[in-house]
């Protein structure tokens, strides 16, 4: 049987004893920053899974919601710093979207800290590893999200 195209982002999340699972959507520029973290030997927690996207502004907030539903404990968007960017608008859009999404999540009772935006330039591998470690420990404190189970349980 062929591998039928994987339907869910959640398939990428491996189930093990609980450690925060974090999905990071990295834009092209910042993903080279993430790569650089690897080259230069900066350590960052292995439970961050990066998905490279052309620009942070193409990340539809629906996908962030879907990632959370499918089992991610937090979603991280790394974007170019607005001040360093030739085109400012995309990062501003991302920023606005994330802010809106956080408001929405807060309203429905999901901790807003689970959706983050991180400004990473292409040469900031060190910053990335430092910030991500911080985020992982913060998410660890928040505990597992388990949105699906929460939706199933409440009657």
């Amino acid at each position, binding site marked *: 049987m062929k591998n039928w195209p*994987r*339907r869910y982002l959640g*398939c990428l999340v491996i189930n093990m004893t609980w450690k925060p699972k974090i999905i990071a959507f990295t834009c092209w520029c910042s993903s080279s920053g993430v790569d650089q973290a690897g080259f230069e030997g900066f350590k960052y927690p292995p439970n961050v899974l990066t998905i490279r996207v052309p620009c942070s502004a193409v990340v539809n907030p629906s996908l962030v919601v879907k990632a959370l539903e499918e089992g991610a404990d937090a979603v991280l968007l790394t974007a170019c710093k607005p001040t360093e960017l030739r085109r400012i608008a995309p990062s501003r859009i991302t920023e606005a979207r994330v802010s809106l999404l956080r408001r929405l999540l807060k309203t429905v009772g999901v901790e807003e800290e689970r959706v983050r935006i991180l400004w990473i330039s292409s040469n900031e591998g060190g910053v990335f590893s430092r910030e991500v470690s911080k985020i992982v420990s913060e998410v660890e404190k928040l505990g597992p999200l388990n949105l699906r189970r929460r939706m199933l349980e409440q*009657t």
Partner: protein
Amino acid sequence: MLSIKSENLRIILEDLASKNALIAPVERNGYFEFSRLRKAEEIRLDYTNARIPPKRFFLPERQLVFKYDPKKGVTEEPEDDFKAVLFGVRPCDASALSVLDSILLKPPYRDPFYENRRKSIIVISLSCTKPLEECFCNVFETGPVRGFGEDLTLTPMDKIFAVEVRTPRGLALVEEFRKLFAEADGRLLEEHENLTRRLVGEMNNKIRVDKEKLVRLEKEADEAFFQGNAQRCIECSICSFTCPLCYCFESEDCLEKNSYARFRGWDTCISPSFTRMASGLDPRASKADRLLHRFCHKLSRIPLAFNAYGCIGCGRCVSLCPVGIDIREVLRKWG
């Protein structure tokens, strides 16, 4: 006919609830609905009717059909033990179950999931003493006192319930708690009869239907009437989802961990994708046709095939339709 005192009924309900085998009407979030209960106190015996019909216990919104594992092959997961007593169903909704029986269990193919659930759930109906404004069960004779399809019929009199045993399964339940029931005396029987007469008389809608006339609906349908309603219709599926008799289902394959699963769940003939084929062809492309199909199916095709109406007059679709499409109008015009 038997009778049972209210306090004795409580004892039975509490016993069932403690076994986690009681589904009864409760008020949740501002409306009545059926729910599996742990404590019998929550039951609202004064309820009007549940907004979501009890069909969801027999035909769930989403149900696993089978699982397929490329390594192990097809596996059918046995359903969890669903043994329960569905208490307090209105006679109209109970009648819907008997119509569903004739459709879904029609040979040669019997729907195994429905049959399974039907076997494991005992239905106790509770006569309707305060019919709602939208109700028209008297039209199809599915209420308000007794319907068909239930195992026991309870009719509330003062402080006492008249109990009518309808099936052997109902009798078995009565036998289990035999001490709590009493034989009904002549006075009770008389009272019961009076109540029945009064309740049927109280239903204030003046709809009369003639089956012979109604089955011609399909041919004699007034185009303008259905076009007018179609213009209003917003194609939400409230009417089908809240209909105790709508049984159409959709199936869908999903990917689960290392296996594929097929689920089935409610579908609605009002949706434009209901008959649209992959090639884009749609034999029922217009909204008016879909509405006509819905009404014809209920009012002329099921009567033709099964000697029962496909509508039981609960009035859910009438009340819940956001744009006021009213099956009673159809009945008045063609009934």
